[in-house]
């Protein structure tokens, strides 16, 4: 949903040398809308030799090389709006330059119960983890 609305947040446009959606070719891909902002991205090793990619895509692949980066982190580090990063990440995944991991997110049915809430076992792990901090 942010994909449709972000271009209206004009206050941010000044921060870019090009208008944000110019880097996506003006597209808002349907698949990218469902990409959770906390989904983790991991660049494929083959991505290091990738040619013909836009500077924005190259930057995303560099950031996600050898480490997991969430979509939100990629947005923060590239200073591109979340919606733009979603489109670019979805493109790169389709081109096999990176892998998207959605375990635990709303896009991962196995970690949720029938009502869409997170599974009890996952919540127990989270609770134990926080308590041990």
């Amino acid at each position: 949903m942010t994909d449709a609305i972000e271009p209206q947040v004009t206050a941010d446009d000044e921060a870019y040398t090009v208008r944000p959606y110019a880097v996506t070719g003006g597209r808002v891909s349907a698949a990218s809308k469902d990409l959770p902002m906390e989904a983790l991205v991991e660049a494929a090793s083959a991505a290091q030799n990738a040619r013909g990619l836009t500077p924005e895509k190259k930057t995303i692949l560099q950031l996600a090389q050898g480490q997991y980066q969430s979509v939100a982190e990629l947005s923060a580090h590239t200073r591109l709006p979340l919606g733009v990063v979603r489109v670019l990440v979805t493109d790169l995944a389709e081109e096999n330059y990176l892998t998207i991991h959605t375990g635990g997110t709303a896009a991962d049915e196995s970690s949720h119960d029938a009502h869409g809430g997170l599974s009890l076992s996952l919540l127990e792990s989270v609770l134990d983890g926080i308590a041990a901090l």
Partner: protein
Amino acid sequence: MASQPSNAAVAEGGTPQAPTVVKIVIAGGFAVGKTTFIGSISDIDPLNTEAAMTEHSIGVDDAGGVSDRKTTTTVAMDFGRIALPGALWLYLFGTPGQDRFLFMWDDLVRGAIGAVVLVDTARLDQCFPAVDYFEGKGIPFVVCVNCFDGVARHKLEDVREALGVPDEVPMMYTDARERSATKQALIAVVQLAMQRLKN
């Protein structure tokens, strides 16, 4: 989209698996201390998903009790990350500081464990949109009265009455600067989510 089974993160041996990611939303009014709350416990310095409005907006919300102590506007979500044992990553997402960004909340809360609503009793009305939103969506939330300068100025029962939240909603004092206090708030959210699941 590549979907990872939730138990993959704890697979025995072999190649390292991608962490399982969960999130908790940190809501509340403008300059109530959301970024401070996130920063007190995050493994990384809080990041912001949108370009800063001005150079001055780089930095950490000082959780000032008065608005003139906050010199900039948070234009989008601030967030942090905590690595938990068992290849679990917990993300904390702060809501955009102003009501005009309410349209982003649906995206923000999708798949979240629940939410913390930070309250400044000097500006109680600022948390009303958050409380209304989470109640309306049925999202588990706890109310944390942020004690600026470590002073609790109001009784929790009085705050509960003023907010009109039912007894089931946990309420507590917190200090957004204190890791131990933010930890307790996060524990309360997860416990509430578990309680909901069992009922």
